[in-house]
């Protein structure tokens, strides 16, 4: 473990999680490890069903009753979140850790004014109502809501989608958290608004110095906003490292194919876009060995044994046997 990782805000070690379902145990997360440094922005990317949302729900401990963590630890500021009581977790949520969800219309309460909700979220602070109101207006102004003080009395439906997402971000930052988790915050927005929100998060991260986990399936946004990236496939970490290393020198065939399929990367007009043939495997009945083997064009005999995370460079890891072959050869 490199020395600078001790300054990490969040470390996940060998996390495995399963859902009990009538059809069998759904092994949704398997041996997930990741590190988030203080003041860094980490992107988690992967296709639908890869477990990225389950992973952050596990960090927030917002899991359904049929979920079962079978292994691992989640260290937040050095303390294992999985060992905390429900009361301790509740104290952390919206405090040291806060979250921005995909659809701001469903995360804001439609029957309370924005100001009411932004005052409520400061329930832990020993401040007067007036001070709380001023702080709320100040925070709205910082996320770019014009005429913030008078807008406090407005209701969520009176704002546009982009504005609502700004308000959700303002609320998440009210408690000046150490860690902000953003679950696909721009997926429901149009391109020009997505750019605005990404720019806003970038500026706010500099101001507040918090660490951010940004979950998305949009590779372009990761390249723009994040310093580090974790690529997930079918409940495992396929590859992790700095965005520059992973996007320029992908070490896992899945990452390579994912990047190649992004039409934004293809500048020549083509009638035949690259794809990843095959389907994500069933999480009840996993393939033998490497989970990507059935779709991997580079699979060879060794892939019937599950690969460990090999080092592909400084702080750059990939779970693929090809890396071992290269070092042996």
């Amino acid at each position, binding site marked *: 473990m490199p020395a600078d990782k001790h300054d990490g805000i969040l470390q996940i070690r060998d996390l495995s999680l399963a859902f009990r379902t009538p059809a069998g145990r759904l092994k949704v997360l398997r041996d997930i490890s990741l590190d988030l440094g203080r003041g860094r922005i980490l992107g988690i990317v992967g296709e639908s069903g890869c477990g990225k949302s389950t992973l952050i729900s596990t960090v927030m401990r917002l899991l359904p009753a049929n979920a079962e963590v079978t292994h691992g630890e989640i260290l937040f500021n050095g303390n294992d979140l999985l060992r905390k009581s429900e009361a301790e977790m509740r104290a952390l949520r919206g405090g040291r850790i806060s979250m921005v969800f995909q659809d701001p219309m469903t995360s804001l309460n439609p029957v309370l004014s924005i100001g009411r909700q932004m005052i409520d979220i400061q329930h832990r602070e020993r401040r007067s109502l007036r001070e709380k109101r001023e702080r709320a207006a100040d925070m709205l102004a910082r996320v770019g809501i014009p005429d913030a003080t008078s807008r406090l009395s407005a209701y969520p439906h009176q704002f546009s989608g982009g504005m609502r997402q700004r308000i959700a971000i303002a609320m998440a930052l009210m408690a000046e958290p150490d860690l902000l988790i953003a679950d696909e915050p721009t997926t429901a927005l149009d*391109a*020009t608004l997505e*750019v605005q929100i990404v720019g806003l998060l970038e500026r706010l991260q500099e101001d507040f110095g918090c660490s951010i986990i940004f979950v998305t399936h949009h590779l372009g946004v990761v390249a723009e906003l994040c310093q580090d990236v974790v690529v997930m496939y079918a409940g495992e970490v396929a590859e992790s490292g700095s*965005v*520059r290393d992973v*996007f320029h020198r992908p070490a896992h065939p899945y990452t390579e194919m994912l990047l190649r*399929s992004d039409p934004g990367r293809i500048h020549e007009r083509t009638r*035949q876009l690259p*794809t990843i043939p095959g389907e994500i495997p069933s999480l009840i009945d996993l393939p033998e060995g490497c989970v990507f083997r059935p779709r991997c064009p580079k699979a060879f005999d060794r892939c019937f044994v599950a690969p460990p995370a090999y080092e592909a460079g400084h702080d750059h890891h990939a779970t693929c046997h090809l890396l071992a072959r290269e070092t042996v050869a």
Partner: protein
Amino acid sequence: MSALLEVRDLTVRFRSKTALRALVERDRHPWIEAVCDVSFSIGEGETMALVGESGSGKTTLARAIIGLVEPAAGSIRFSGCEIGALSRGEMKRVRHDMAMMFQDPRGSLSPRLAVRQLITEPYRIHDLKRRDLDAECRRLLGLVGLPAEFGERYPHQLSGGQARRVGIARALALDPKLILADEPTAGLDVSVQGEVLNLLARLQDEIGLSILMVTHNLNVVRHVADRVAIMYLGRFVETGPTEDVFRQPRHPYTAALLSANPESDPDARMARIELQGDVPSLLKRPSGCEFHTRCFRVQATCRDVVPARGAAGRQDFTCHFPLSDELSITARRKG
């Protein structure tokens, strides 16, 4: 290339308040114009993309063409027939040649019908029951690359990509000449998105389909569309061949949209144009050029004078101060 679909000065209006309320409030114009004076044509075997942000009227335009909403003004001619003048029976015949792929792939499939029933429903509706429906089902599933067993599945047993393919299969059932594809790749992962687009491209090559594709994803447009129209507040602000528009956008909104397309390369830095503010409400259309509230090149004229339609090469646009070549927006690499 003869025009298969020809749309002239099409306007679609929705009531913004009830007739009684408008009367009480003496509002002489209780309407919002979701689509406003739109003209274009699509030739046989051609793909045209309608691009714009939410609320720009692109879906409404597609729905008006297939007759799901009634236009307030303008003309839609399909294979030379004026659609507005047709009776219900005649319209049914036109719909035989025109099919729509809806935006929500699962929402547009009845949860109580199996895939086989879903994709053969068009034959029942158009009284083509004498055909061998089992054979048709197999043919259609094969066309979209799904195994024949899928005929027995129900929509909840399909993944997003598979549901989308079933939607395509159903749209293709009657061998249409034109497909209206509303956000055909929204909500799909990149690799599945590629599969769906490749499928549409292949079908176009094989059976000479014309496609009107509604999308907000410019990355997709570049690869599949021959021509593109950019919509803003229900109007076309720029149209032209895809390559020309991508190489040299003339309207500032087009340029902003193109630059708002983050590239998955951490070292590529676009000459990013961040638009200020939000899309204005259709109830309160801005004066002059309707884009002036967000435009980064706005000048005094733009606030008062409605720009006329200008042209440069094969592109046309509505802007007083179109972007010229030296201001072209291109990706620059750092260092």
